[in-house]
């Protein structure tokens, strides 16, 4: 009798019903929202509005007006307005994994702030620019040209914000001693952000390989980015899968079920 009284508080988990593998449900939901978000993004940008691949910077004004006031762009902007917030949920999967790394929290905050500023400038600004053209008729062609320039430059020329984000992510992976993500992914991330630096000349060039639809600034960067994005999610998938349950941030939720132990109750 006395044995049971003593041992029960030491192994409180035994008294709780065994839970199935659902402790990472939050991470999995965030994780699977990412492909949904990217597919939606892809459909909106490519076959729906043909915003991507980017239209030429030196497009004649009538072509710009036609694009900016097209119904397809309107539908694209409407979809983006509704599903825009999914980006932040997607970024949560990075932040959760960085928190497990043996690195300074500065890296995590930098990733977070980089993602926020990058998303505001790189996604919200273009959405407003294209949205204004699509939803508000009556703007002068010169205003629409300005919005067109503003939208594309914000979308493609704002990669500096993402550079800081990915640099912090890459460095965190390289410096991490817990091997949460493979080291080579850290180096791959470093290439990825270096190629994003190549987007800076889009502010200067209006045609050729350094324009916003150019070979160097868009196509090379895009090939590397898309392959990197797919690989990074495969690695994140494996990291979530291999994460021990007791290292979950929500582990305390499951550990606190210690009904007969007075100390946790006092804390609670």
């Amino acid at each position, binding site marked *: 009798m006395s044995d049971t009284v003593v041992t029960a508080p030491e192994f409180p988990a035994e008294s709780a019903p065994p839970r199935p593998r659902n402790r990472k449900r939050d991470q999995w939901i965030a994780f699977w929202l990412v492909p949904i978000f990217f597919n939606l993004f892809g459909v909106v940008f490519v076959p729906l509005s043909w915003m991507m691949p980017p239209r030429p910077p030196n497009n004649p004004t009538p072509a710009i007006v036609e694009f900016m006031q097209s119904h397809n762009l309107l539908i694209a902007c409407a979809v983006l307005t509704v599903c825009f917030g999914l980006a932040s949920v997607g970024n949560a999967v990075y932040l959760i994994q960085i928190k497990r790394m043996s690195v300074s929290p500065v890296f995590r905050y930098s990733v977070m702030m980089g993602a926020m500023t990058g998303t505001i400038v790189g996604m919200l600004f273009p959405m407003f620019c294209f949205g204004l053209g699509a939803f508000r008729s009556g703007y002068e062609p010169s205003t629409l040209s300005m919005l067109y320039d503003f939208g594309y430059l914000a979308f493609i020329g704002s990669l500096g914000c993402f550079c800081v984000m990915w640099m912090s992510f890459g460095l965190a992976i390289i410096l991490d001693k817990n091997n949460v993500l493979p*080291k*080579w992914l850290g*180096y*791959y991330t470093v290439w990825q952000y*270096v190629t994003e*630096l190549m987007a800076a000349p889009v502010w200067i060039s209006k045609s*050729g390989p*350094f324009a916003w639809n150019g070979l160097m600034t868009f196509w*090379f960067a895009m090939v590397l980015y898309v392959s990197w994005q797919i690989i990074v999610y495969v690695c994140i998938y494996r990291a979530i899968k291999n994460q021990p349950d007791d290292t979950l941030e929500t582990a305390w939720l499951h550990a606190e079920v210690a009904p007969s132990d007075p100390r946790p109750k006092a804390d609670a």
Partner: protein
Amino acid sequence: MTNVADPDIRDTGRIAHPRNHLPGESSMWFFVIGDLLIFGVYFIGYVYYRGLDPDLFLQSQARLNLDIGAINTVILLTSSLFVALGTSAARNGKVPEAIRLFGLAFAFGVAFPVMKAFEYIPEVTAGLTPGTNLFFMYYYVMTGLHLCHVTLGLVILGFVIRSLRITVKPRMSFVESAATYWHMVDLLWILLFALLYLMR
């Protein structure tokens, strides 16, 4: 290739690593090869666009400061030599010598951006900016990207010197990774120098 099987214990009591391994960490080689591939693609892009307008590229190229370019090549090659000697010294357990050699490599490395500033500033003040034409855009983007690599390399060399100073036994994998990276920076510059300054 001398110490194949046994760790080599020198009179300093330090243990050098077996020599039949890939120098540095394998992930650093992943980075180096990938980086070279990316620069390779940029070089192909440059050569393609150069072929479309060779006169413009040749005329613009003639306005670069070949002397500073050549001096910078010598600077980086010398720096790389000191890195190689420093790595060898560290491997043989001669830590004070390794620190001196890496210090020299660092000093030569610092001279590179300083010389680059002497090159860039007169060019920019003369109105030769990235907006001038496609050649100068390539010139500033590629040399600028390379300069970022040099800066990162200097930070890494600084960490190598720090690590040699504070630890009794040098972490050879780190020293070798840093040396590998620095040699890559060197190699990239030689290619850039040939493509941007010399190619006729």
